[in-house]
């Protein structure tokens, strides 16, 4: 009912506007083309300046209302992020100056040079000097931005420090799987045809001697504050993207082609909760590449903790090998029977 009502109201408004517009056309014919053009010029010229002024007021209001809700206000949570923020501000200042100058000139000229019978138009077809000026100035400004940008780019995409911990991230429709290399610090080989959603979600080759201490977790990844983390990123099905808003980085997860990214977190999750005043704060991993109907819900979490807490957490993790082959788990030996089966399987392998 309310739908029909609102449709009726909209139609009515349309009819009214349309009739007024038609009437104004008759009026302008009566007035003569010249006179009505002058009137239109006056109105629109005024609106040009009004739009300019209101536009800047609008920008101010918008900034006041929403700046506090952006990441900029919160501050970056990684050293990479701090560099990104720094660069954002430099870029904002340079482009901001250009924005203000050009928009003011545009709308001001439109207002100032609206038709006037007495003005003689300035026949000004070209000026090599002026054109050189506005070729050179943007070129110089851009050189600054490019140099600044590329230094950061090569830092972000370069090799992480030697002490970096390595975590493998695998995207799937619609969630994240994390693999730690375990005590030997080497990941076991994997092959996608070995994938078994229940026990081997990334397709580890169990025969590989490095594979048996690998640890798998889902949805939540633990990393240590102050220690560089290198992510080796892959996907099981379609393209996903590891989006780390708070660390200001992202990298695609492509099936068949591993990618990497590294960052150094500088605040623990707890510290961030205090810093933002939000008790529910979490370092969320958002999927930033369209991956299907559940794309919007493909969430992971990074827990940034200190070394001590990390060690405690790690100690509780069980290698995935023992989930795949529970009978080989040394902590489940007490029963004698289990022991003999383990031997048998090992012999076969």
């Amino acid at each position: 009912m309310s739908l029909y009502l609102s449709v009726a109201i909209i139609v009515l408004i349309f009819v009214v506007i349309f009739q007024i517009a038609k009437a104004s056309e008759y009026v302008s014919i009566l007035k003569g083309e010249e006179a009505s053009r002058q009137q239109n010029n006056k109105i629109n010229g005024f609106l040009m300046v009004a739009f300019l002024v209101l536009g800047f007021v609008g920008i101010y209001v918008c900034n006041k209302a929403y700046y506090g809700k952006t990441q900029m206000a919160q501050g970056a949570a990684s050293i990479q992020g701090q560099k990104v923020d720094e660069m954002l501000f430099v870029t904002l200042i340079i482009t901001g100056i250009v924005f203000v100058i050009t928009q003011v000139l545009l709308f001001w000229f439109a207002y100032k040079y609206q038709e006037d019978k007495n003005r003689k138009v300035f026949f000004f077809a070209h000026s090599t000097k002026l054109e050189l000026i506005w070729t050179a100035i943007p070129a110089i400004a851009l050189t600054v931005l490019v140099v600044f940008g590329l230094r950061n780019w090569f830092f972000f995409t370069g090799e992480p420090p030697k002490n970096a911990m390595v975590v493998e991230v695998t995207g799937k429709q619609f969630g994240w799987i994390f693999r730690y290399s375990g005590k030997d610090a080497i990941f076991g080989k994997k092959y996608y045809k070995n994938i078994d959603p229940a026990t081997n979600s990334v397709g580890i080759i169990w025969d590989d001697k490095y594979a048996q201490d690998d640890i798998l977790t889902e949805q939540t990844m633990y990393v240590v504050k102050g220690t560089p983390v290198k992510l080796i990123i892959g996907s099981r099905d379609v393209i996903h993207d590891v989006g780390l808003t708070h660390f200001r980085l992202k990298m695609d997860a492509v099936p068949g082609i591993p990618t990497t990214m590294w960052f150094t977190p500088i605040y623990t999750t707890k510290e961030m909760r205090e810093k933002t005043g939000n008790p529910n704060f979490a370092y969320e991993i958002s999927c930033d590449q369209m991956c299907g109907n559940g794309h919007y819900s493909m969430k992971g979490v990074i827990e940034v903790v200190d070394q001590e807490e990390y060690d405690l957490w790690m100690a509780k993790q069980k290698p995935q090998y023992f989930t795949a082959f529970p009978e080989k788990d040394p902590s489940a030996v007490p029963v004698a029977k289990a022991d003999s089966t383990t031997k048998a399987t090992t012999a076969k392998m």
Partner: protein
Amino acid sequence: MSHEAALHNHEGQGHDDHGHHEHHDTFLTKYVFSQDHKMIAKQFLITGMVWAVLGGLMSVLFRLQLGYPDASFPWLESILGKWAKGGQITPEAYYALVTTHGTVLVFFVLTAGLSGTFANFLIPLQIGARDMASPFLNMLSYWFFFTASIVMLSSLFVETGPFSGGWTAYPPLSALHDASPGSKSGMDLWIIAMALFVVSSLLGGLNYIATILNMRTKGMSMTRLPLTIWALFFTAVLGVLSFPVLLSGMILLIFDRNFGTSFYLSDIYVNGVGALSNEGGSAILFQHLFWFLGHPEVYIILLPAMGMVSEIMSVNSRKPIFGYMAMLGSLFAIAILAFLVWAHHMFVTGLNPFLGSVFVLLTLLIAVPSAIKVFNWLTTLWRGNIRFTPGMLFAIGFVSLFISGGLTGIWLGNAALDIYLHDSYFVVAHFHIVMGVASMFGMFAGVYHWFPKMYGRYLNNSLGYIHFWITIAGAYMIFWPMHYQGLAGMPRRYFDFSIWESFKQFAELNRFISTVAMIVFAVQILFLINFFYSIFKGRKVTVLNPWESNTLEWTTPIRPGHGNWPGEIPEVHRWPYDYGKDGHDFIPQDVPVGADETDTH
């Protein structure tokens, strides 16, 4: 005045001078299978408008979901059926709407609707030709577009839904039937529609190039062409060189989808299906092929708007366009660079960092010709005598939007910032302003300016003013705040943000944006009413040259027939921008250079 005299003269001569192809036009040959470039232009325009309404309506629907994620609208269920169970749009439907909105607006509206309309309409009229080099291919170009439209439309009615993997159609999502319901037969229809579209755009493009190069009237040297024609020329060259690459990418995709090849597929395990046998392909290959078209496509959309804005701005400032050769040079530079920057869409795909740095450099280089264009437009206004016709307003609006959206391109083109902002709402804001709304403004400017030539009547001025002011204010209100959402890292293509601690703070802003989007859409309907009403009932054009413009299209009769000029095609003696020269308000191109005239540009 000589023009009035010429008008009467032509009318007196009647129809005989149409020459060899005066024949009995039936309804079918005049309005449907027409080979007259002006009629084909109108066909492109109106088909484009139909798509613009559909695409716009889709955006209103998905904005409804983003603005009111918890509300339920029973009437939605009665329109969309199972796609809006309980009055709430489903994620499948949401993604289908977003995808179709993108595809349709980029290709069907801003490519076919924009270049298709104005290249067809303006090229022969402004260069002084009776028609296109091949009117028949031109007709085919439209009918391929029409067929593509029908196939795309039919994909909306497939049981598993239209394609829903984003307009960029990245495999493996688009290649695997089981990865998403939208990747089933909806995707096959999508590819077929795109393939037909590519054929249409190639037939059109080849025709435009051939016509501009070979069929200029006497005296119309290349440097006397209006900037509109130059822009349409570069647009056509871009299209002809890049669309085939998209077609090849699509063909490989069809093979991967249906014939078991592995061009884009490797190491895939699909939930519920298991491991696929495809190995050795590269999903990134498709992105290279796609963006090799995809980036030039941005300029295919933007250049015609730039060309028309240059022309309209000069006419209504009563002043020559500033720096004709610089405008031309910057168009050329943009056209070249358009082919060398595609991988800036792929900074976060694991691209080689060195390669990335090359693309940063080349991408930011585009800012230089863009800056030249902006400053030249500003100087064109400076000390002019501006008439605010609705066309002129939209041209000024275009420049404003091009500045705003172009500057954020400097942020995104810098890989070290893109690594943060990529695929966030910042990108949505950027490309909607600079490519979507700005080109739309160019198109509106063109429609308002050349409507009198198309239909022999004027559009209603007051409605034009209302249309302009609400649209530009609305466009900024919709897209400006999205930059803030992007700076909060809010990813695009999310159906619902309420489960995200990092992004849910914008619920109120999303509602605001959705409301403004609906108002802006309603105002576009007002434009449509104005358009169709004015075709039949608008104020009649009574003078040959209502905008007092220099270009050749205004030397034709008010309602030109097939063949454009009843008599001889006029000879050109000067460039098209002699406004305010030697105390004359304007000197049309077909007026011989006087003995006492000062040297031109």
